[in-house]
Every structure is written in structure tokens, then in C-alpha cells.
């Protein structure tokens, strides 16, 4: 169980892993995530299931190296097993045929966006996707996204690939050009905040997939709480997707920094050990 079958580097910081877990492969739906733990000293951390193959019994994860846990995961090789892997967690994305869907993914957020784009396309929607990253190396899964999108716009901060500018530039262009019925955004919290402000201006219903800090992922601890529409909700069981226009992104950004000092120290110690 949990054996790594394939490992692909999208860049030196972004890695795709295909992991054996037949039960999760069978029961997962787009939008679900898993919680992992690497080694007996490891912490529990969440990653979205970006794809699954129920026949082979595998799930696909795409991870960006941030600190200790993501580094420990990426340090595993094909043939190694992940100590603990539990899921599928979270509510699946609500998919229906509503017309035109604008999907926007930032950085590693494109990975969890992929199965959602695929599902919306298969449900009969017109899907326009904007993928964005700081530079060319950080643009991932472009071909796969193209396969399930009617149109793709690539944006990079430095213009090294696609067009230069932030994700919101590409999004606004579509919105001004055609009627968009729903929007879905996944990426860094700050990107989701500005994407959400944009679609609010045009009154387009928008879902954001939040990446709060988690411990158990089963609704037991409340570490992942966010304010949505003035109410406290738990990202792991009530989300991870919420009505973006109701999310208090400033509070979320603040909470993401809650363990910054501890994380920095852990990363330092870890890199010294290597």
C-alpha cells in the first residue's frame, strides 16, 4: 500500500507522484484531497488528488516543495512507500452543466484544478482555463489542461512563457469577451483573493479551493477554520471549496502564517541534516 509507482519532476520544485492506493483511487471524486505522513516523526499534511486510475488502483499527487514535509515526500523514490495516507477527504466539487466555466489556476494549484476542468468539460460545459505562475519553469500540466479546455491562456509574471501579467489579467479578458456562468479558482491564497475580487466585480459565482493549515483533516481539531459569510467553517469537512465571495481571505492569509516561525526553524534544521 501507498507505494510510489512513478515520479516526474515538472520543475526542481514541483513533482508529480503516482501512488498505489486502490481504495482511494476507487472512491475519490474531483475536489477531494488526502492527508499524508512521512516517517514516524512526520506531520500530517494535505495534498489534493489531481488524478486517479481506479483500474490500476493509483492516485496522482502534485507537490510543490515548501518546507520539511513536502521535502520529505519528494525525497522518496519510486518503490518507496508513504507511511500514512488517508482519504478521500473534503467535499467533492459540485459539477453540472451550467454553460461556460472559467477555471483559473495559480502555481501548483493547476494540479488540483485539472480533474475539475476535466469533469466540467465531460459534463458538457464550455471551459476556458487560465493558468499562471511566476515563470515558465513553474507552469505545470499545460498539455493536460489543454486536453480538457476549449481555450487556454497562459500567464507568467515575467513573461517567460505565454503572456506577461497576473492571472487576473487573463481572467478579465475572458469575462469582458463572453458570458461566464461560473468561475473556479485554485492557487495561493493571495491569488485567490484577487481573483475573487475580480469576479465579484462582475457578479460571477465563484468557487475557491482553500489550502488552510490542517492536522487531522477529519473535522476533529479546527486548525483549518476559515470565516465564510461571517461564520466559522472547517475547510477539511465543510470545504475545501467555498463561495469565494464570502471567504475572508485576509483572515485566511493571517492564519496561514500562524506557524511561520516554527516552520522556518524546522526547515533550517532539516536542511542542515541533509
Amino acid at each position, binding site marked *: 500500500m501507498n507505494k510510489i509507482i512513478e515520479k516526474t519532476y515538472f520543475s526542481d520544485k514541483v513533482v508529480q507522484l503516482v501512488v498505489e492506493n486502490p481504495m482511494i483511487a476507487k*472512491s475519490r471524486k474531483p475536489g477531494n484531497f488526502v492527508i499524508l505522513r512521512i516517517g514516524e516523526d512526520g506531520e500530517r499534511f494535505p495534498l489534493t488528488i489531481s488524478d486517479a486510475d481506479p483500474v490500476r488502483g493509483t492516485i496522482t499527487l502534485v507537490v510543490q516543495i515548501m518546507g520539511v514535509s513536502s521535502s520529505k515526500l519528494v525525497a522518496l523514490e519510486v518503490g518507496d512507500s508513504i507511511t*500514512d495516507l488517508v482519504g478521500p477527504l473534503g467535499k467533492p466539487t459540485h459539477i453540472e452543466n451550467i454553460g461556460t466555466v472559467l477555471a483559473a489556476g495559480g502555481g501548483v494549484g493547476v494540479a488540483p484544478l485539472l480533474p475539475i476542468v476535466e469533469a466540467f468539460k465531460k459534463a458538457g460545459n464550455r471551459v476556458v482555463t487560465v493558468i499562471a505562475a511566476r515563470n515558465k519553469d513553474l507552469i505545470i500540466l499545460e498539455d493536460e489542461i489543454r486536453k480538457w479546455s476549449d481555450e487556454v491562456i497562459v500567464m507568467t509574471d515575467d513573461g517567460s512563457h505565454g503572456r506577461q501579467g497576473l492571472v487576473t489579467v487573463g481572467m478579465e479578458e475572458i469575462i469582458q469577451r463572453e458570458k461566464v456562468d461560473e468561475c473556479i479558482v485554485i492557487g495561493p491564497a493571495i491569488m485567490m483573493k484577487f481573483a475573487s475580487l475580480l469576479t465579484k466585480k462582475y457578479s460571477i459565482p465563484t468557487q475557491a479551493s482553500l489550502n488552510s493549515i490542517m492536522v487531522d483533516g477529519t473535522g476533529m*481539531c479546527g486548525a483549518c477554520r*476559515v470565516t465564510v459569510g461571517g461564520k466559522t467553517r472547517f475547510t477539511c469537512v465543510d470545504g475545501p471549496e467555498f463561495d469565494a465571495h464570502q471567504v475572508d481571505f485576509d483572515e485566511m492569509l493571517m492564519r496561514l502564517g500562524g506557524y511561520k516561525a516554527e516552520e522556518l526553524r524546522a526547515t533550517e534544521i532539516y536542511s542542515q541534516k541533509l
Partner: protein
Amino acid sequence: MSLNPEYLKEERNQMWRAELRSKTKNKERMLIQRVKMPELAPAVRVKHQDREVNMGLELNQALTEAARCMDCVNPTCIEGCPVSINIPKFIKYIEQGEILLAAATLKETNALPAVCGRVCPQEKQCESRCFYVEKTDKPAVAIGHLERFAADFERNSGSSNIPDTAKPNGIKVAAVGSGPASLSFAGDMVKYGYDVTVFEALHEIGGVLKYGIPEFRLPNSVVDFELENLRKMGVKFETNYIVGRTSSFDDLREEGYQGFFIASGAGLPRFMEIPGENYNGILSSNEYLTRVNLMGAAMDDKDTPVLKGKNVAVIGGGNTAMDSVRTALRLGAQRAMIIYRRSEAEMPARVEEVKHAKEEGVEFMTLCNPLEYFADEKGRVSGMRLNRMGLGEPDSSGRRRPMPIEGSEFELDVDLVVVAVGVSPNPLVPSCLPDLKVTKWGTIVVDEEKMQSSISEMFAGGDIVRGGATVILAMGDGRRAAENMDHYLKNKSNQ
């Protein structure tokens, strides 16, 4: 599940018990002082998250305490125990020096005596119904301490006896969750011959015993020992497995499971919904205790971080609050405070925990209620505003209702707040079983005798039924569910 009086009488009339009674006069027994549990000194113990505070009775202390028990004709103490342990029998075995037989007596009805001896609120259960309390002004026989003594003695003797199990009947049953309710269910079902698998969402078995109750009160090694016994009896454990998510109940039915025991606990933490409660440094007791107990966050070599505070406020007055505040002290808090809106008399925590907390230097700010939190520029909590409370008329729980006193507001510097104001039933299982009847609070409705739910092959017990109770009540539920599921499945296969 009260024990059959005939059986009790028969046991009491056994020669050895009669002889033991006649050896010491009741009057002499009554003159003996109640034993004091040896404890680690407060100054030492606040430095160690992982050293148990109660050190356990010495053999001679246990023998003397056992002699206090009068071996009553009508042992009311048993009525106070949710699993009806034959209390005088096990205590008299201790007095006799037959400690292993005492341990075996405990195991007749209690699968985890070493745990219960440590965490039962004895003063509200068995000990509250002891002859000494009911008929004299002397303190009860220290039933809990003696129970722990016998169980620890057995564990340390290396001669732990694995209970006999019936011939395997090949029928598969599943327990959902691995807290005390499931463990006692699994132990009984495997004795009846069933093929039992316990499914647990987390990566460790034990439920609250592992992620909630700290090492200084219940060492994990004690729990692990009991788990090992269950394994030896044939119980299977699956971690990282969320029933209803990893696979559905239908999937499990297809795999041949014929009976289900749902004991998924009361895992959902409540917050007070007051301004500022989502600032960094304000966390639920579940998060705080899980980080420290399950993830080992206080240790340097573990990746999971935990926030440390100098001025720590813990909101609440239950066991969870006591465990949190004492953990905060052990992680270096200079000031650790309990903030509770009623008075100390109403605190639901075990009396012993309150005593230990006080010895360790915890400040008790009773009749105080938080109103709002403040934070620094980074969003880390820096202070709170509270008001003082008075007690009004009794409310629906029978406790006097706390009422805010006007103009009593004050502020407090805090840099870590742990919210321990209760939990709600885990909604996961009910949410994937539309036919399962639940109350408006989200607890599963069961037949009180049989623990059977509205879906006939599903039984339930523990906190998911009671909404938050005790280890021993959860275990009692597990036993009753096992007995009745056994009848149910046998009837079904006879039809």
C-alpha cells in the same frame, strides 16, 4: 448490566471470602485510613510532559487499602460502576494477596482496567456508592487505585492471561472508530468467535485515549499493552481508514461484513463564536492535545509544531480543559489559567485533576467568561476581555445558570488560548447513512438496552450516542452492543 444477585451471593459465600471476613473485625477495618496515592512532586512533574503524576500503590499500601473494604452483603459500589465490576471480589483477592486473580476478576467485565483505574471519575461512579460514603463520614474505599494496582501488577508480572476465545465462526463484523467503545466491543466479539476488524481514521489506534488524554495521566504504553492483547486474541486493526469515505458501508457489506458497531466519538470541537476567536494562537483543546499527544509536537525530533505561550488561558472546566492547562504548564507557560463561567463546584472535571492542577500552580479564574480577543499586528492573540459571572437559578442541567455581572468587565494579557468548551458528535458516519436515525444534536438514536440503531445490523455506542461521556460508559456500550449483535446475528443465521 447489573450483576445477577444470586451470582454475587454465591461468590461472597465462598469459603475463602468468609474466612477473610472473619479474620479482621469490621470495626478495625473502619479504623484504617484511606491510602494516599504516591505522586511525583509538583515541581518535578511540571517539567515533564511524559511522566505520570500518579505513581501507583505499593504492594503493602494496596493490601492495607483492600482490608478497608467490608465485603458488604449488599455491595452498592457495583451499582455505581457502569460495567458492574465485581468490586468486593477483586478487592478481597488483593487482600488475600492473589493479585493475578484480582486482575482476572476485573477482566470478567472490563477490557481495560489499567485505563479505567486511571481515568474513571470514581468519585461520581463506584466510589460515590461505597458503604463508607453512603453510611459513614469516612472516605470511600479507593476502588480506582486498587483497580489500577491489580491491572499494573498483572502487566508487569509478564504473566498476562489472554482470555479464551470461542472457535472462529467466520462471520465478519466491523467496528468504526478505535476508542474505548470499539475496543471493548471488539474484545467481546472476538471472544464469541467473530472475525472482528476495527477501522480507524487516524494513524494510531485508541481514539481519545491516544490523541486526547496526555501521557502524564495515561501513558500510551498502558494503552498499547491492552491493544497488543486484543491483537493476540485475533482482533484486526486498520488505520488510515475512514468508513464512509475510504470505502462505503455498501463496499464493506460486499466484502462480507454482516454487523457494524459505530463508535466514531464526539470529535467536533465547539467554539464560542466571539469576536477575534480565529486569531492565531487560539485553538481548540482537540488541536492542542492532538498536536502534543498524537503528533509528539513537544519533542524536538517531531515535525509537527505547537505554539508555546507564556500567558495561557484555557476556557472550560472539564477534563479536557484540565489536560490542556496542565500541558501548557509542562510546555513552559509562566502563567496557566483556567477560565470557567461557573464555580468550582460545578466543574465537570475529575476531582483529582483539579487537585493536581492546583498543586502544579494553575490559576483558577472561576465565574469568568470571555467576551472578545485582541491580537498584535501579525494576528497573534495578545489579550482578551472578560466579564465576571454570578450564579442564578438552576438551568436544565440542574446546575445554577451563570449570569454576567454588569460593569465587571476586565482585560487580561494572553498569548495562547485553548478553547475547551465541549465537542459535538462526529457527523461523518450519519451523513453517509440517510436511513440512520439521529437526534437534533446529531447523536445516533439507539435502543438503550440493545444499542441497536434504526438500521438493524448497525449498533452504536460511546460518545456518538451519548454526545460526550466517559471512557467506562463507552466501554459499557461496547459490551452491550457485542452481546446483542451476537444474538441478532445468530438469530438471523438460524432463520
